[in-house]
């Protein structure tokens, strides 16, 4: 098997927390274990600037770029060319793997990588509508980026349909590779559950898109109807006041616990305390949270939006429409089954999820994509320009050309031969260093 030097680029990486960060980290770890070389490129977080090494020698470049808006750098398209070019040459990168449509840095690095003759892969983690102006603009951006990208990865089939529609890429150039969950750390522990009441767990950022408004209504309704229901809510966000308000008004201080934001490593300890996991997201490409919950052996009640229906088999999940009466009905079904003892054994749940989703499998499937793009022909500038032309944004050709010229100028200013080559080593071949 060929070994590649892969560069993961995204604005979102540790210490920031979220699905994308998790995905990049775990995928990188698995690829490292397979003997590939992986470098992560992200912008600086506070005073975290420069190169850091993570577990198993995962090298992370925190580039000194200012954050512009919600952990995203200003999309200047040309300002970071010297820095990114230097790193790409220094690490002798073969494949650039950008993550998340929101990440300006990923788009930028993929453009530079394309022009430097590297192959590009892009993973799209989110779904977009077609209704509002912001969606229209983001969709155009992603269309530009994907028009010259070698391959695109989506996390669910719904996500693929969405990407094919909004970025107008050939559906054969889009693979579906889901996220995975570390089922070895998300293990069930039924002894943590309370015997005399039923605990409903909610773990999500408390923002509108995660359906906090639905959660609030359900807390009020369900606690009134069932005296034995307790809520455990982990997460923080701008909509936290709503839950606090409902708790206050309904006098449920003893039954609704708000834990605030949690470290990802602590999520499992909260999950195992619950019997039912409630997810009220309004839109979701994949939904890591329900897989984590199922892995911990909880009954999952979730809204039927985005890619969620594809994620878990029918016996592990109660799917409902995204409104309060339907969710109530789903929860009541779950409670009734729980009381009757009609439950899948938590450990069996864990093994089921383990079979479906593990990073080993995900990274193998990603490797297939890498192999495929590595075999594709390297394009000339004219071919790149032709690709970008297909997106319909003609002025972008000027940006591409300018980037190309700047790259050429830097070949004189900072010639390739004067750039130090970083030695390739990873934990599989540690002896090669000497």
């Amino acid at each position, binding site marked *: 098997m060929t070994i590649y030097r892969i560069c993961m680029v995204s604005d979102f990486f540790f210490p920031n927390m979220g699905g994308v960060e998790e995905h990049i980290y775990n995928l990188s770890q698995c690829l490292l274990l397979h003997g590939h070389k992986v470098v992560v490129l992200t912008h600086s977080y506070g005073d975290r600037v420069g190169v850091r090494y993570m577990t198993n020698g995962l090298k992370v470049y925190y580039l000194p770029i200012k954050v512009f808006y919600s952990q995203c750098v200003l999309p200047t398209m040309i300002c970071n060319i010297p820095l990114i070019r230097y790193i790409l040459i220094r690490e002798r990168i073969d494949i650039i793997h950008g993550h998340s449509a929101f990440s300006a840095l990923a788009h930028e690095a993929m453009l530079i990588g394309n022009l430097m003759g590297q192959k590009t892969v892009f993973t799209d983690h989110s779904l977009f509508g077609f209704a509002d102006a912001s969606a229209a603009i983001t969709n155009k951006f992603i269309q530009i980026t994907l028009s010259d990208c070698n391959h695109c990865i989506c996390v669910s089939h719904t996500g693929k349909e969405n990407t094919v529609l909004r970025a107008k890429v050939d559906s054969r150039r889009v693979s579906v590779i889901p996220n995975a969950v570390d089922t070895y750390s998300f293990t069930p522990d039924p002894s943590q559950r309370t015997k005399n009441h039923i605990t409903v767990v909610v773990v999500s950022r408390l923002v509108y898109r995660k359906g906090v408004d639905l959660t609030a209504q359900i807390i009020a309704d369900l606690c009134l109807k069932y005296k034995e229901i307790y809520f455990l809510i982990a997460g923080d966000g701008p909509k936290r006041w709503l839950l606090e308000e409902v708790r206050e008004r*309904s006098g449920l201080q003893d039954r609704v616990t708000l834990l605030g934001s949690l470290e990802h490593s602590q999520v499992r300890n909260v999950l195992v305390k619950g019997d039912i996991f409630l997810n009220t997201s309004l839109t979701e490409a994949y939904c890591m949270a329900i897989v984590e919950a199922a892995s911990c052996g909880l009954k999952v009640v979730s809204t039927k939006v985005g890619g969620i229906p594809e994620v878990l088999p029918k016996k592990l999940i109660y799917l409902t429409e995204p409104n309060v009466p339907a969710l109530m009905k789903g929860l009541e079904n779950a409670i009734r089954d729980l009381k009757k003892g009609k439950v899948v054994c938590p450990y069996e749940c864990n093994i089921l999820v383990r079979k479906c989703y593990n990073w080993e499998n995900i990274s193998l499937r990603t490797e297939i994509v890498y192999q495929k793009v590595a*075999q594709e022909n390297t394009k000339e500038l004219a071919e790149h320009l032709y690709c970008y032309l297909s997106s319909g944004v003609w002025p972008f050709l000027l940006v591409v050309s300018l980037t190309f010229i700047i790259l050429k100028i830097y070949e004189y200013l900072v010639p390739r031969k004067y750039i130090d080559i970083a030695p390739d080593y990873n934990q599989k071949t540690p002896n090669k260093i000497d």
Partner: protein
Amino acid sequence: MNKDAEMKQSSWDLQTSPNKPWRKVLYEKQPYPDNYTDEKMFLRDLKKNIDIKEITFLEAVAGASLLLQEFCNVVAFVLIYFYILYEWIDPFVILVSMGISTVLGFIYYRFFLSNSVENRIGSDLRTLITFIVFGRLFSPVFHTLTDTISTDTIYTMTFVMMLVHLIFFDYGVGAAIVSSSLSVSAVVFCSICLASRLSSANNAFILITTAVVMFVLFPVLRTEMNNPNSFKVLFLLLNTYFLYHVSIFATILFLLVVILICIIFPLLYVHYQKYKENIYGPWDEAIVDDADSIICNSNSIFQHSADDLR
């Protein structure tokens, strides 16, 4: 090498097994490559143009006529200004006719369209007296406020402000851009600008009164009467008649704009409707009630539970 790569690519694409149909799930390992696209299943949930209302030409014209009415209003106001400026008409005639039409409109509005006449008549009178007293008192100030600014600037400003008025005017469509206060302010600004060109403070007061009657009171009455077409026709004819006496060129321009608003724009709108394509699918964000209603609901729940306790 090239051919080889292509071969490999196609084999990667077509490595399908016909035994088991493809399912749109992630939790199962399927004997299909990751970039497999099932033609039958792909985009099956895509919906286009759900509950879209096709707008006919007549409906489009009816909508555009609201803009026409306000446009005629603006032209009429500017005409009145010029008639006062060049003293083609006694300003007093304008004041009296404005007064009479306001009184008639007020009587119709209060006695036929709204019921609570007794309660409101006092406050209406107070508003009227306040306007007359302060308007008359400050008209010398208004008259000289923008005196030092050159006439060209005044006219350009008037044009821009009238445009602002037309853009932000409340035509009865709940769009985000609508701002009644901005459109009224623009008109008041205009009338104060124009008032400085007039010969006396008295004329300035008459012009400002005219602006208030035409742009504040008249739209209220019109909306209450469901925008009758008679007003539009009346304004159109009057404007054309008086404009013809002022300048033929302006009349032609005016009529061209009227044709543009009333016929060409609606035609274009109806024509381009067929390109409308709203895409809906499972990726759309679900819509929920906003937080306020939930708070209200939980309020009522709280009351219920309190009742239960009792």
